[in-house]
Protein backbone atom coordinates (compact mmCIF):
# COMPACT_ATOMS: atom_id res chain seq x y z
CA UNK A 1 0.00 0.00 0.00
CA UNK A 2 2.74 2.43 0.90
CA UNK A 3 4.48 1.72 -2.40
CA UNK A 4 1.65 3.55 -4.09
CA UNK A 5 2.35 6.64 -2.09
CA UNK A 6 5.97 6.96 -3.15
CA UNK A 7 5.20 8.65 -6.48
CA UNK A 8 2.92 11.07 -4.68
CA UNK A 9 5.63 12.06 -2.27
CA UNK A 10 8.07 12.58 -5.10
CA UNK A 11 5.52 14.53 -7.11
CA UNK A 12 4.82 16.82 -4.16
CA UNK A 13 8.51 17.55 -3.87
CA UNK A 14 8.77 18.07 -7.62
CA UNK A 15 5.80 20.42 -7.51
CA UNK A 16 7.50 22.51 -4.86
CA UNK A 17 10.71 22.31 -6.84
CA UNK A 18 9.12 23.50 -10.08
CA UNK A 19 7.61 26.50 -8.33
CA UNK A 20 10.84 27.39 -6.58
CA UNK A 21 12.92 26.93 -9.71
CA UNK A 22 10.64 29.15 -11.77
CA UNK A 23 10.66 31.83 -9.08
CA UNK A 24 14.45 31.80 -8.95
CA UNK A 25 14.65 31.76 -12.74
CA UNK A 26 12.34 34.74 -12.90
CA UNK A 27 14.47 36.65 -10.45
CA UNK A 28 17.59 35.87 -12.42
CA UNK A 29 16.13 36.85 -15.78
CA UNK A 30 14.16 39.86 -14.74
CA UNK A 31 15.26 43.39 -14.09
CA UNK A 32 15.11 44.92 -10.66
CA UNK A 33 14.74 48.65 -10.37
CA UNK A 34 13.08 49.35 -7.04
CA UNK A 35 11.36 52.64 -6.52
CA UNK A 36 9.45 53.74 -3.42
CA UNK A 37 6.34 54.58 -5.40
CA UNK A 38 6.46 51.32 -7.30
CA UNK A 39 6.92 49.30 -4.13
CA UNK A 40 4.15 50.90 -2.15
CA UNK A 41 0.97 48.87 -1.72
CA UNK A 42 -1.76 49.44 -4.26
CA UNK A 43 -4.36 51.88 -3.01
CA UNK A 44 -6.03 53.43 -6.07
CA UNK A 45 -3.40 56.13 -6.16
CA UNK A 46 -3.74 57.22 -2.55
CA UNK A 47 -1.26 56.82 0.23
CA UNK A 48 -2.28 53.99 2.53
CA UNK A 49 -3.59 55.64 5.66
CA UNK A 50 -4.82 52.77 7.75
CA UNK A 51 -3.64 49.41 8.90
CA UNK A 52 -4.66 46.56 6.65
CA UNK A 53 -5.84 44.26 9.39
CA UNK A 54 -9.33 45.05 10.49
CA UNK A 55 -11.98 43.54 12.69
CA UNK A 56 -14.79 41.59 11.14
CA UNK A 57 -18.28 40.88 12.26
CA UNK A 58 -18.80 37.91 14.50
CA UNK A 59 -21.27 36.67 11.93
CA UNK A 60 -18.41 35.62 9.75
CA UNK A 61 -17.04 33.35 12.47
CA UNK A 62 -20.42 31.79 13.05
CA UNK A 63 -20.71 30.64 9.46
CA UNK A 64 -17.15 29.40 9.72
CA UNK A 65 -17.93 27.27 12.77
CA UNK A 66 -21.00 25.82 11.12
CA UNK A 67 -18.88 25.03 8.10
CA UNK A 68 -16.39 23.07 10.18
CA UNK A 69 -19.16 21.06 11.78
CA UNK A 70 -20.57 20.09 8.41
CA UNK A 71 -17.12 19.34 7.09
CA UNK A 72 -16.73 16.78 9.87
CA UNK A 73 -20.04 15.33 8.91
CA UNK A 74 -18.74 14.80 5.39
CA UNK A 75 -15.70 13.03 6.79
CA UNK A 76 -18.15 10.59 8.37
CA UNK A 77 -20.12 10.19 5.16
CA UNK A 78 -17.24 9.14 2.92
CA UNK A 79 -16.41 5.73 4.41
CA UNK A 80 -20.11 5.06 4.80
CA UNK A 81 -20.78 5.64 1.12
CA UNK A 82 -17.91 3.34 0.20
CA UNK A 83 -19.08 0.37 2.24
CA UNK A 84 -22.80 0.96 1.91
CA UNK A 85 -23.28 -2.28 -0.02
CA UNK A 86 -21.65 -4.34 2.68
CA UNK A 87 -23.12 -2.84 5.82
CA UNK A 88 -26.64 -3.23 4.51
CA UNK A 89 -29.86 -1.76 5.76
CA UNK A 90 -28.57 -1.45 9.29
CA UNK A 91 -25.63 0.69 8.23
CA UNK A 92 -27.92 2.77 6.06
CA UNK A 93 -30.33 3.40 8.90
CA UNK A 94 -27.58 4.27 11.34
CA UNK A 95 -26.37 6.97 8.95
CA UNK A 96 -29.90 8.21 8.40
CA UNK A 97 -30.26 8.67 12.16
CA UNK A 98 -26.93 10.51 12.19
CA UNK A 99 -28.10 12.77 9.39
CA UNK A 100 -31.49 13.25 11.03
CA UNK A 101 -29.85 14.55 14.20
CA UNK A 102 -27.75 16.94 12.19
CA UNK A 103 -30.65 18.01 10.01
CA UNK A 104 -32.35 19.10 13.21
CA UNK A 105 -29.34 21.32 13.71
CA UNK A 106 -29.53 22.52 10.13
CA UNK A 107 -33.20 23.47 10.48
CA UNK A 108 -32.35 25.26 13.69
CA UNK A 109 -29.64 27.25 11.90
CA UNK A 110 -31.93 28.10 9.08
CA UNK A 111 -34.78 29.34 11.22
CA UNK A 112 -32.51 31.24 13.55
CA UNK A 113 -31.22 33.15 10.57
CA UNK A 114 -27.63 31.99 11.00
CA UNK A 115 -27.36 31.36 7.28
CA UNK A 116 -28.32 34.86 6.25
CA UNK A 117 -25.47 36.99 5.06
CA UNK A 118 -26.15 40.54 6.05
Amino acid at each position, binding site marked *: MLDNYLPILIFLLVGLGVGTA*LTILGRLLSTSRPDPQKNSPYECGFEAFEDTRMKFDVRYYLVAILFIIFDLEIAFLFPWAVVLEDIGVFGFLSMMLFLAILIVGFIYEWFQGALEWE
Partner: protein
Amino acid sequence: MFDWACTLPLAGWACDLYAEQRLLRIGLGIIVLVVFCILMVLIMVYAERRLVGFMQLRKGPNRVGPFGLLQAIADTIKLLIKEVIVPTNASPILFLLAPILVLAPALAAWAVVPFGDQLVLADVDASLLYILALASMGVYGVIIAGWASNSKYAFLGAMRSAAQIVAYEIAMGFALVGVLMAAGSLNLREIVLAQSGGIHQWYIWPLLPLFFVYFIAGVAETNRAPFDVAEGESEIVAGFHVEYSGISFALFFFAEYVNMVMIAALSTLMFLGGWQSPFGGEVTPAIGVILFFGKMSFFLFCFMWFRATFPRYRYDQIMRLGWKVFIPVTLVWIGLMGGVMFFTPYGYVFH
Protein backbone atom coordinates in the same frame (compact mmCIF):
# COMPACT_ATOMS: atom_id res chain seq x y z
CA MET B 1 29.57 3.06 -11.95
CA PHE B 2 27.43 3.93 -8.97
CA ASP B 3 28.15 0.69 -7.19
CA TRP B 4 30.29 2.30 -4.54
CA ALA B 5 27.49 4.69 -3.63
CA CYS B 6 25.23 1.80 -2.75
CA THR B 7 27.45 0.86 0.15
CA LEU B 8 26.75 4.21 1.83
CA PRO B 9 24.20 4.13 4.62
CA LEU B 10 20.68 5.07 3.54
CA ALA B 11 21.67 4.98 -0.09
CA GLY B 12 20.93 1.30 -0.43
CA TRP B 13 17.26 1.81 -1.11
CA ALA B 14 17.97 4.22 -3.91
CA CYS B 15 20.09 1.60 -5.60
CA ASP B 16 17.41 -1.02 -5.13
CA LEU B 17 14.88 1.20 -6.73
CA TYR B 18 17.25 2.08 -9.49
CA ALA B 19 17.80 -1.58 -10.09
CA GLU B 20 14.15 -2.25 -10.61
CA GLN B 21 13.82 0.96 -12.57
CA ARG B 22 10.99 2.06 -10.45
CA LEU B 23 12.38 5.49 -9.82
CA LEU B 24 12.95 5.89 -13.51
CA ARG B 25 9.35 5.10 -14.27
CA ILE B 26 8.11 7.46 -11.61
CA GLY B 27 10.39 10.19 -12.87
CA LEU B 28 9.20 9.72 -16.43
CA GLY B 29 5.61 9.75 -15.33
CA ILE B 30 6.08 12.97 -13.43
CA ILE B 31 7.79 14.63 -16.35
CA VAL B 32 4.98 13.58 -18.67
CA LEU B 33 2.37 14.94 -16.29
CA VAL B 34 4.14 18.25 -15.78
CA VAL B 35 4.63 18.71 -19.50
CA PHE B 36 0.98 17.79 -19.99
CA CYS B 37 -0.06 20.47 -17.53
CA ILE B 38 2.11 23.11 -19.19
CA LEU B 39 0.79 22.26 -22.62
CA MET B 40 -2.79 22.24 -21.44
CA VAL B 41 -2.38 25.65 -19.88
CA LEU B 42 -0.80 27.12 -22.99
CA ILE B 43 -3.59 25.76 -25.14
CA MET B 44 -6.25 26.89 -22.70
CA VAL B 45 -4.97 30.42 -22.49
CA TYR B 46 -4.98 30.76 -26.23
CA ALA B 47 -8.30 28.99 -26.68
CA GLU B 48 -9.98 31.02 -24.02
CA ARG B 49 -8.96 34.32 -25.47
CA ARG B 50 -10.00 33.34 -28.96
CA LEU B 51 -13.25 31.82 -27.81
CA VAL B 52 -14.29 34.66 -25.57
CA GLY B 53 -13.28 37.05 -28.32
CA PHE B 54 -15.48 35.16 -30.72
CA MET B 55 -18.40 35.21 -28.34
CA GLN B 56 -18.00 38.91 -27.78
CA LEU B 57 -17.52 39.65 -31.47
CA ARG B 58 -13.85 40.53 -31.09
CA LYS B 59 -10.89 39.01 -32.84
CA GLY B 60 -8.75 37.97 -29.88
CA PRO B 61 -5.00 37.47 -30.24
CA ASN B 62 -4.03 37.08 -33.90
CA ARG B 63 -0.62 38.66 -34.33
CA VAL B 64 2.02 36.39 -32.85
CA GLY B 65 2.47 33.41 -35.13
CA PRO B 66 -0.20 32.02 -37.44
CA PHE B 67 -3.68 32.81 -35.99
CA GLY B 68 -1.92 34.14 -32.90
CA LEU B 69 -0.99 30.60 -31.88
CA LEU B 70 2.30 31.65 -30.32
CA GLN B 71 0.69 34.34 -28.19
CA ALA B 72 0.74 32.22 -25.05
CA ILE B 73 4.43 31.46 -25.44
CA ALA B 74 5.19 35.12 -25.97
CA ASP B 75 3.27 35.95 -22.81
CA THR B 76 5.21 33.37 -20.86
CA ILE B 77 8.53 34.84 -21.93
CA LYS B 78 7.31 38.30 -21.14
CA LEU B 79 6.24 37.30 -17.63
CA LEU B 80 9.50 35.51 -17.05
CA ILE B 81 11.61 38.59 -17.69
CA LYS B 82 9.37 41.11 -15.97
CA GLU B 83 10.35 42.50 -12.62
CA VAL B 84 8.90 40.85 -9.54
CA ILE B 85 7.89 43.71 -7.30
CA VAL B 86 7.88 42.95 -3.61
CA PRO B 87 5.91 45.70 -1.85
CA THR B 88 7.64 47.61 0.92
CA ASN B 89 5.44 46.43 3.78
CA ALA B 90 5.12 42.86 2.62
CA SER B 91 6.64 39.82 4.30
CA PRO B 92 9.11 38.93 1.52
CA ILE B 93 9.50 35.20 2.14
CA LEU B 94 5.80 34.43 2.48
CA PHE B 95 5.09 36.75 -0.42
CA LEU B 96 7.28 34.72 -2.74
CA LEU B 97 6.25 31.42 -1.19
CA ALA B 98 2.52 31.89 -1.76
CA PRO B 99 2.46 31.19 -5.52
CA ILE B 100 4.63 28.14 -5.02
CA LEU B 101 2.19 26.83 -2.43
CA VAL B 102 -0.65 27.26 -4.87
CA LEU B 103 1.17 25.52 -7.67
CA ALA B 104 2.58 22.48 -5.85
CA PRO B 105 -0.74 20.91 -4.80
CA ALA B 106 -2.30 21.78 -8.15
CA LEU B 107 0.41 19.76 -9.87
CA ALA B 108 0.71 16.95 -7.34
CA ALA B 109 -2.99 16.17 -7.53
CA TRP B 110 -2.42 14.81 -11.03
CA ALA B 111 -0.43 11.90 -9.63
CA VAL B 112 -3.59 9.89 -9.03
CA VAL B 113 -5.62 10.79 -12.11
CA PRO B 114 -6.16 7.75 -14.33
CA PHE B 115 -5.98 8.47 -18.06
CA GLY B 116 -6.71 4.87 -18.84
CA ASP B 117 -7.12 1.57 -17.08
CA GLN B 118 -3.40 1.26 -16.45
CA LEU B 119 -2.35 4.82 -17.16
CA VAL B 120 -2.02 6.17 -13.67
CA LEU B 121 1.09 7.22 -11.81
CA ALA B 122 -0.02 6.30 -8.29
CA ASP B 123 -3.00 4.04 -7.92
CA VAL B 124 -3.78 4.76 -4.28
CA ASP B 125 -7.01 3.57 -2.77
CA ALA B 126 -8.30 6.90 -1.50
CA SER B 127 -7.37 8.86 -4.60
CA LEU B 128 -10.49 11.00 -4.70
CA LEU B 129 -10.02 11.99 -1.09
CA TYR B 130 -6.40 12.80 -1.80
CA ILE B 131 -7.35 15.20 -4.60
CA LEU B 132 -9.92 16.86 -2.38
CA ALA B 133 -7.36 17.31 0.37
CA LEU B 134 -4.84 18.84 -1.98
CA ALA B 135 -7.46 21.11 -3.47
CA SER B 136 -8.32 22.38 -0.03
CA MET B 137 -4.63 23.12 0.58
CA GLY B 138 -4.51 25.38 -2.44
CA VAL B 139 -6.40 28.01 -0.52
CA TYR B 140 -3.39 28.60 1.69
CA GLY B 141 -1.52 30.14 -1.19
CA VAL B 142 -4.37 32.58 -1.69
CA ILE B 143 -4.57 33.44 1.98
CA ILE B 144 -0.84 33.82 2.40
CA ALA B 145 -0.69 35.95 -0.72
CA GLY B 146 -3.43 38.17 0.60
CA TRP B 147 -1.87 38.54 3.99
CA ALA B 148 1.76 38.81 2.97
CA SER B 149 1.04 41.57 0.45
CA ASN B 150 -0.16 43.80 3.28
CA SER B 151 -2.57 45.55 0.99
CA LYS B 152 -6.25 46.07 1.57
CA TYR B 153 -7.38 44.80 -1.78
CA ALA B 154 -5.30 41.69 -1.47
CA PHE B 155 -6.58 41.08 2.02
CA LEU B 156 -10.20 41.48 0.98
CA GLY B 157 -9.58 39.03 -1.82
CA ALA B 158 -8.13 36.45 0.53
CA MET B 159 -11.03 36.99 2.90
CA ARG B 160 -13.49 36.40 0.12
CA SER B 161 -11.82 33.24 -0.98
CA ALA B 162 -12.29 31.81 2.51
CA ALA B 163 -15.97 32.71 2.35
CA GLN B 164 -16.05 30.93 -0.98
CA ILE B 165 -14.86 27.69 0.59
CA VAL B 166 -17.35 28.08 3.40
CA ALA B 167 -20.13 28.37 0.88
CA TYR B 168 -19.26 25.57 -1.50
CA GLU B 169 -17.06 22.91 -0.06
CA ILE B 170 -19.85 21.23 1.88
CA ALA B 171 -22.17 21.01 -1.08
CA MET B 172 -19.29 19.64 -3.13
CA GLY B 173 -18.53 17.02 -0.49
CA PHE B 174 -22.16 15.92 -0.33
CA ALA B 175 -22.29 15.66 -4.10
CA LEU B 176 -19.25 13.38 -4.08
CA VAL B 177 -20.89 11.18 -1.44
CA GLY B 178 -23.52 10.32 -4.03
CA VAL B 179 -20.83 9.21 -6.47
CA LEU B 180 -19.19 7.08 -3.81
CA MET B 181 -22.50 5.47 -2.92
CA ALA B 182 -23.01 4.51 -6.52
CA ALA B 183 -19.47 3.28 -7.15
CA GLY B 184 -18.64 1.88 -3.71
CA SER B 185 -15.08 3.06 -3.90
CA LEU B 186 -12.90 6.09 -3.33
CA ASN B 187 -10.55 5.06 -6.09
CA LEU B 188 -10.97 7.02 -9.31
CA ARG B 189 -10.07 4.07 -11.51
CA GLU B 190 -12.69 1.91 -9.85
CA ILE B 191 -15.24 4.72 -10.11
CA VAL B 192 -14.64 4.82 -13.86
CA LEU B 193 -14.78 1.05 -14.19
CA ALA B 194 -18.09 1.04 -12.33
CA GLN B 195 -19.53 3.11 -15.18
CA SER B 196 -18.51 0.74 -17.97
CA GLY B 197 -21.03 -0.54 -20.45
CA GLY B 198 -21.97 2.49 -22.48
CA ILE B 199 -23.35 5.95 -22.18
CA HIS B 200 -26.44 4.90 -20.25
CA GLN B 201 -24.23 3.65 -17.41
CA TRP B 202 -22.55 6.97 -16.85
CA TYR B 203 -23.33 8.50 -13.51
CA ILE B 204 -24.44 11.76 -15.03
CA TRP B 205 -27.90 10.28 -15.52
CA PRO B 206 -28.81 8.89 -12.12
CA LEU B 207 -26.85 11.60 -10.32
CA LEU B 208 -27.86 14.56 -12.45
CA PRO B 209 -28.58 16.99 -9.59
CA LEU B 210 -25.34 16.03 -7.89
CA PHE B 211 -23.49 16.52 -11.14
CA PHE B 212 -24.75 20.09 -11.45
CA VAL B 213 -23.93 20.82 -7.83
CA TYR B 214 -20.47 19.39 -8.25
CA PHE B 215 -19.63 21.22 -11.42
CA ILE B 216 -20.89 24.56 -10.15
CA ALA B 217 -18.98 24.08 -6.91
CA GLY B 218 -15.94 23.18 -9.00
CA VAL B 219 -16.21 26.42 -10.93
CA ALA B 220 -16.43 28.24 -7.63
CA GLU B 221 -13.44 26.41 -6.21
CA THR B 222 -11.22 27.44 -9.08
CA ASN B 223 -12.23 31.07 -8.54
CA ARG B 224 -13.61 31.31 -12.05
CA ALA B 225 -16.38 33.55 -13.29
CA PRO B 226 -19.16 33.84 -12.25
CA PHE B 227 -17.73 33.03 -8.81
CA ASP B 228 -14.49 34.99 -9.08
CA VAL B 229 -15.23 37.18 -6.09
CA ALA B 230 -11.72 36.62 -4.74
CA GLU B 231 -10.30 38.38 -7.81
CA GLY B 232 -13.22 40.50 -8.87
CA GLU B 233 -11.21 42.90 -10.99
CA SER B 234 -14.03 45.40 -11.24
CA GLU B 235 -14.54 45.48 -7.47
CA ILE B 236 -11.24 44.81 -5.76
CA VAL B 237 -8.95 45.27 -8.77
CA ALA B 238 -7.38 41.82 -8.80
CA GLY B 239 -8.01 40.64 -5.29
CA PHE B 240 -5.42 38.52 -3.65
CA HIS B 241 -2.80 38.86 -6.40
CA VAL B 242 -3.06 42.61 -6.88
CA GLU B 243 0.55 43.10 -5.78
CA TYR B 244 2.01 40.29 -7.86
CA SER B 245 3.89 40.71 -11.07
CA GLY B 246 6.25 38.83 -13.30
CA ILE B 247 6.87 35.17 -12.68
CA SER B 248 5.10 35.08 -9.32
CA PHE B 249 1.94 36.26 -10.98
CA ALA B 250 2.47 33.73 -13.74
CA LEU B 251 2.56 30.93 -11.19
CA PHE B 252 -0.84 31.93 -9.81
CA PHE B 253 -2.18 32.10 -13.31
CA PHE B 254 -0.68 28.73 -14.17
CA ALA B 255 -2.11 27.11 -11.06
CA GLU B 256 -5.59 28.45 -11.73
CA TYR B 257 -5.66 26.88 -15.16
CA VAL B 258 -4.20 23.60 -13.94
CA ASN B 259 -6.95 23.47 -11.35
CA MET B 260 -9.52 24.16 -13.99
CA VAL B 261 -8.29 21.24 -16.06
CA MET B 262 -8.39 19.14 -12.91
CA ILE B 263 -12.03 19.92 -12.23
CA ALA B 264 -12.84 19.08 -15.82
CA ALA B 265 -10.93 15.80 -15.52
CA LEU B 266 -12.69 14.89 -12.28
CA SER B 267 -16.10 15.65 -13.72
CA THR B 268 -15.23 13.44 -16.66
CA LEU B 269 -14.03 10.60 -14.46
CA MET B 270 -16.92 10.68 -12.06
CA PHE B 271 -19.87 11.51 -14.27
CA LEU B 272 -18.95 10.80 -17.88
CA GLY B 273 -17.21 7.46 -17.58
CA GLY B 274 -13.62 8.66 -17.96
CA TRP B 275 -11.84 6.98 -20.82
CA GLN B 276 -14.71 4.65 -21.62
CA SER B 277 -16.47 4.66 -24.93
CA PRO B 278 -20.10 5.75 -25.03
CA PHE B 279 -20.98 2.60 -26.98
CA GLY B 280 -19.66 0.17 -24.41
CA GLY B 281 -16.98 -2.40 -25.03
CA GLU B 282 -13.23 -2.24 -24.58
CA VAL B 283 -11.17 0.50 -26.16
CA THR B 284 -7.45 0.62 -26.75
CA PRO B 285 -5.55 2.89 -24.38
CA ALA B 286 -4.84 5.40 -27.15
CA ILE B 287 -8.51 5.76 -28.06
CA GLY B 288 -9.34 5.86 -24.37
CA VAL B 289 -7.05 8.82 -23.83
CA ILE B 290 -8.55 10.60 -26.81
CA LEU B 291 -12.06 10.00 -25.47
CA PHE B 292 -10.97 11.28 -22.09
CA PHE B 293 -9.60 14.45 -23.61
CA GLY B 294 -12.70 14.91 -25.71
CA LYS B 295 -14.98 14.75 -22.69
CA MET B 296 -12.67 16.99 -20.73
CA SER B 297 -12.65 19.60 -23.48
CA PHE B 298 -16.38 19.89 -23.21
CA PHE B 299 -16.11 20.91 -19.57
CA LEU B 300 -13.25 23.25 -20.32
CA PHE B 301 -15.39 24.84 -22.98
CA CYS B 302 -18.11 25.31 -20.38
CA PHE B 303 -15.65 27.13 -18.14
CA MET B 304 -14.95 29.65 -20.90
CA TRP B 305 -18.55 29.86 -21.91
CA PHE B 306 -19.58 30.75 -18.35
CA ARG B 307 -16.95 33.41 -18.23
CA ALA B 308 -18.19 35.01 -21.41
CA THR B 309 -21.83 34.79 -20.41
CA PHE B 310 -22.56 35.26 -16.73
CA PRO B 311 -22.21 38.35 -14.60
CA ARG B 312 -20.43 37.87 -11.29
CA TYR B 313 -22.43 36.49 -8.39
CA ARG B 314 -22.99 38.69 -5.42
CA TYR B 315 -21.67 37.68 -2.03
CA ASP B 316 -24.95 36.96 -0.30
CA GLN B 317 -26.17 35.11 -3.37
CA ILE B 318 -23.18 32.79 -3.19
CA MET B 319 -23.94 32.06 0.44
CA ARG B 320 -27.58 31.44 -0.21
CA LEU B 321 -26.97 29.23 -3.19
CA GLY B 322 -24.44 27.13 -1.29
CA TRP B 323 -26.27 26.69 1.99
CA LYS B 324 -29.92 26.98 1.15
CA VAL B 325 -30.09 25.36 -2.24
CA PHE B 326 -27.22 22.98 -2.76
CA ILE B 327 -27.01 21.41 0.69
CA PRO B 328 -30.74 20.56 0.89
CA VAL B 329 -30.73 19.28 -2.69
CA THR B 330 -27.74 17.00 -2.14
CA LEU B 331 -29.00 15.76 1.23
CA VAL B 332 -32.38 14.86 -0.21
CA TRP B 333 -30.76 13.10 -3.14
CA ILE B 334 -28.47 11.06 -0.90
CA GLY B 335 -31.40 9.95 1.23
CA LEU B 336 -33.41 9.16 -1.87
CA MET B 337 -30.59 7.13 -3.39
CA GLY B 338 -30.15 5.08 -0.25
CA GLY B 339 -33.87 4.53 0.09
CA VAL B 340 -34.20 3.36 -3.48
CA MET B 341 -31.15 1.13 -3.19
CA PHE B 342 -32.37 -0.67 -0.09
CA PHE B 343 -36.13 -0.60 -0.10
CA THR B 344 -37.12 -0.78 -3.74
CA PRO B 345 -36.15 -3.13 -6.54
CA TYR B 346 -34.83 -0.21 -8.59
CA GLY B 347 -31.47 0.01 -6.86
CA TYR B 348 -29.69 -0.98 -10.08
CA VAL B 349 -30.45 2.47 -11.44
CA PHE B 350 -27.71 3.86 -9.25
CA HIS B 351 -25.06 1.29 -10.06
